[in-house]
Every structure is written in structure tokens, then in C-alpha cells.
């Protein structure tokens, strides 16, 4: 299923252009904020929880997911260069699967790693908070990458829709409407993080079984559907 050539092209496309700068900006900001907060307030578990939960997991991870997920395929479809992948005897689901792996790896690298570093800076992993949020970021990376890869495959405005989902649905609706929280990648990731880290500060509105099932269903279904869409992707001509 995994095609190293498709992976190489995707990595270089993702990390070579201006996109790498955007990908790097948020993690740097997180670490700077953490350092400043630590200097100003000292090591405080509640503050660490607020920064990692409010900024790292709620804002940074989904945005990185949008950039990496849609960026793994969207630009190629937009500019038409995807024709060089499609005019090959390579199975379409294999192209999607490979791009998903790349998008997950990039999202994890640019979100989970900085989250862990920020957690260490904030309170030295007190109450397992750094580990918990790192696990949450890793888990969320998988689902976000799959969702936004699908979005990049089906829509030319994937980045806009992705940001709307990440910021409006996850952040705004999630905090206002309790039902929306059940359908929130962030909450599913928190459920797993709570279980793994056993941290009392890190909690989720969704039970672990529900969260696990939803995570798997969303990831698998989005990937499968993206593969189907790529099989019948229509390359619009100039006319």
C-alpha cells in the first residue's frame, strides 16, 4: 500500500515550500509562550493545563492538521500536477494511504513534539500533564490528518473549510454546545490521553470506548472515501 515515491514527492511538497514556515511558526509560538509563562508564574499545573489544553491541543494541533492534511494533496489537485500520479499504474487508495501516512507524520512532528517540549518547560511534566497532552496530540494528529486529507481531495477550498471546522466547530461550538463535544476530535483525543496518563487534570466529555470507536471509524472512513474520490477525480481542462 505504501509507495515510497509518492511519499517522497509529498514530503518535499509539504516541507519545501512556504508551508514549512507556517508549519513551524505555531510550535515556535507555543514554546515561546510556555517559556514566558514559566518565567512569569513559575511551575503551575493548572497554568500548564490551560496553555496545553487551550492553545496546543485546541488551536495548534488542528491548524497543523489542516495545513499538513490538505497540503498533502490539495495543491497537486489545484495546479494539476496530480496528473503525474494518476497517469501511473498505481492504485488510487495506495496514493491516499501513503499521503495519509506522510500527513500524520508531519502533523505529529510539528504538534506532538512541541507540545511535549512546552509541557516540560511549563511544569516539568508535573501530574503527567506533558505526557497526557502529547498523547492527545499524537492521537488527534491521526484523525485530523485523515479528515483534512479527505477535505483536500474533495474541495478546492479545503484550507478554509478546515480552519472553519478547527476553529469554529472544535473551539467555539465545542465550548457552547455539549452535544458538539461528542463529535470533537479534541475530546476523543483527551479521552485516550486521560486513560494513558491517568492525569486528574486531563479529562474528556466523551467516554473512552466511544472515543476509540469514533476515532477509528472517522479515520478509516475518511481514508476510504478519499481513495474512492481519487479514483474518479476529474481533471478539469483549460477550456
Amino acid at each position, binding site marked *: 500500500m505504501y509507495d515510497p515515491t509518492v511519499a517522497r*514527492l509529498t514530503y*518535499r511538497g509539504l516541507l*519545501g515550500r512556504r508551508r514549512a514556515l507556517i508549519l513551524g511558526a505555531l510550535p515556535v509560538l507555543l514554546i515561546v509562550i510556555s517559556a514566558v509563562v514559566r518565567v512569569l508564574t513559575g511551575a503551575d499545573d493548572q497554568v500548564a493545563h490551560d496553555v496545553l489544553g487551550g492553545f496546543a491541543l485546541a488551536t495548534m494541533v488542528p491548524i497543523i492538521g489542516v495545513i499538513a492534511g490538505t497540503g498533502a494533496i490539495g495543491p497537486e489537485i489545484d495546479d494539476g*500536477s496530480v496528473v503525474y500520479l494518476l*497517469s*501511473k499504474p498505481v492504485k488510487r487508495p495506495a496514493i491516499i494511504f501513503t499521503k495519509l501516512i506522510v500527513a500524520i507524520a508531519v502533523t505529529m512532528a510539528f504538534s506532538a513534539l512541541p507540545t511535549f517540549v512546552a509541557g516540560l518547560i511549563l511544569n516539568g511534566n508535573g501530574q503527567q500533564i506533558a505526557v497526557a497532552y502529547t498523547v492527545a496530540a499524537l492521537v488527534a494528529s491521526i484523525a485530523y490528518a485523515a479528515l483534512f486529507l479527505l477535505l483536500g481531495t474533495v474541495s478546492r477550498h479545503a484550507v478554509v473549510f478546515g480552519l472553519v471546522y478547527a476553529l469554529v466547530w472544535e473551539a467555539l461550538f465545542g465550548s457552547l454546545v455539549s452535544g458538539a463535544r461528542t463529535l470533537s476530535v479534541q475530546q476523543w483525543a483527551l479521552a485516550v490521553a486521560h486513560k494513558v496518563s491517568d492525569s486528574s487534570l486531563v479529562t474528556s466529555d466523551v467516554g473512552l470506548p466511544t472515543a476509540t470507536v469514533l476515532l477509528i471509524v472517522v479515520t478509516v472512513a475518511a481514508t476510504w472515501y478519499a481513495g474512492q474520490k481519487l479514483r474518479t*477525480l*476529474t*481533471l478539469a481542462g*483549460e477550456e
Partner: protein
Amino acid sequence: MTTLTIDHVSRWFGNVVAVNDITMTVGPGVTGLLGPNGAGKSTLIHMMGGFLAPSTGSVTLDGQPVWRNEQIYKRIGVVPEREAMYDFLTGREFVLANAELHSLGAKAAQRALATVEMEYAQDRKISTYSKGMRQRVKMASALVHDPSLLLLDEPFNGMDPRQRMQLMELLRRMGAEGRTVLFSSHILEEVEQLASHIEVIVAGRHAASGDFRKIRRLMTDRPHRYLVRSSDDRALAAALIADPSTSGIEVDLAEGALRIQAVDFGRFTALLPKVAREHDIRLLTVSPSDESLESVFSYLVAA
């Protein structure tokens, strides 16, 4: 021997019919797909290449469907019209990636680069390439697996004359080797120089098909219209209408010119200066008023 069969293919986008019930067979050798801009050539090539589903009808390669059949690309090479092509890679990396996607290696990539004579610039980034160099690297990527069918969408667009000659030579060679080569163009001369067999598309319809000489004859035998201004329009008109090469003349008072319809192209062009000299009339303007490709095509459609 590879034959591409297009059987009663139509394609519409909403209410717009881009390709209208086209049936044709493309066999070994070089075939030119000729038509004005917006005629539906790209839509047709997209369907031939399996990148677009026909709304009705079928496209098959030696009996195998092209749409939703990725294994068919073992036998098809595609040179798209669009420019974008992983500009962050070097030419060599790009062709190698294309080779790997066919489960081939560096050897095949190098051979393809040699075929298009791009070895000298293979280690430069594609973003630094000229239009002609891009076209040749695209060509190398399409040739890397030695396909029996080659589809090229407007391959000569934006190329300078020398690059055009080189690419034509290459395509001629491919055709002579027994490959099925199809390229689209809206420029008559390009097609004339390269293709022995021509398919003409106008407004989504299959207007003409055959060898170039036949189509050329249809084009030169059609009635030609000229706009002529002279020092004495009426005297010139009287002298010209006496000859059978002219079928009608209108004195356009508003334009201050004659609109002449000639039925015998060769005879008329010899007659006009002779008549003018004999009657001591100065010719101020002689311009064909319907030489645009579109008007030639519309005549072909009616023929």
C-alpha cells in the same frame, strides 16, 4: 499495434455540451487533433487519457476501458497541457519519480532524458526551466515506460521554432516506430507538418477525418471571400465578374470597398492583379476576409 477507439462519446458539463457524439479510431502513426480553441479538444483528450468519464459512449484501448482502469497506464504516456509539474524537483528527480511509479529505475529515467536531449540540464530545478525545457521533461516522463500510446495536449504551445522542430522530429520518430501518437493543436501549419492523419473537431463535433491532403483540398476549394479597395471599385468589379472564377461581388458603400466571393482560388489570385493592370486601376487593399481558422472549420462542418 495499439488502437484507441472512441465510440459515440459525448461529454457535457451542466447544460454545456463540450463533446458531442464523437466516434473515431486512432491507430499507429501520428494523428493530429485539430480544432479552434474551445472546440473540445482538451475534454476529448482528457477522456482518452482516462481523466474524465464520458457522459455517454466509451473510450477503449485495444478493447480495454480507459476510465477507472489504472493498469491501462502501463501502455499510455500522457503529456498534459498544464504547466505545473513538481517545480521543486530537478529534471532528473522528476523523471526518476515517474519511472519509479512505473516500477522502473534510474536506467529507464536516464534513457528517457537522453531521448529528449535534456541530460545537460537534468540537475537543475524544474522551476528554472524554459517552456521548451519543461515540455521536453514532460515528454521524458511520458516516455519513461516505453508506452505504445502517447497523448499530447497542445504540445507546441509557447515553444520557439527550434524547439518545435525538435519535438516534431521526436514525435515523427515515435510514429515511425509504430507507436500510436495523438496530439492536439489549434494551428493548421503544425498539424500539416507533422500528422499524416487528421481529426478535426469544431464546437464539440467531429467535423472531418482523413489524410491531410484531402482536408487541405477541402479548405482551398471552398469559396474565398476578399475585401478589396482600389482606385476605381466599380470598373474593377465589372472586369472581375466577367470571369468565371468570381461568383459574386458586392459594392460596400459604407466601407468604400468591394466584397468579392471567389470560387476558384488559384485562378482568382492570378486574375486580380492582371485585370487591375489592364484597366489601369490601383489596388489599395486586398485582404482575405474569412481566413480565420474558425471560418475554415465552419466551412468544413458544412461540407
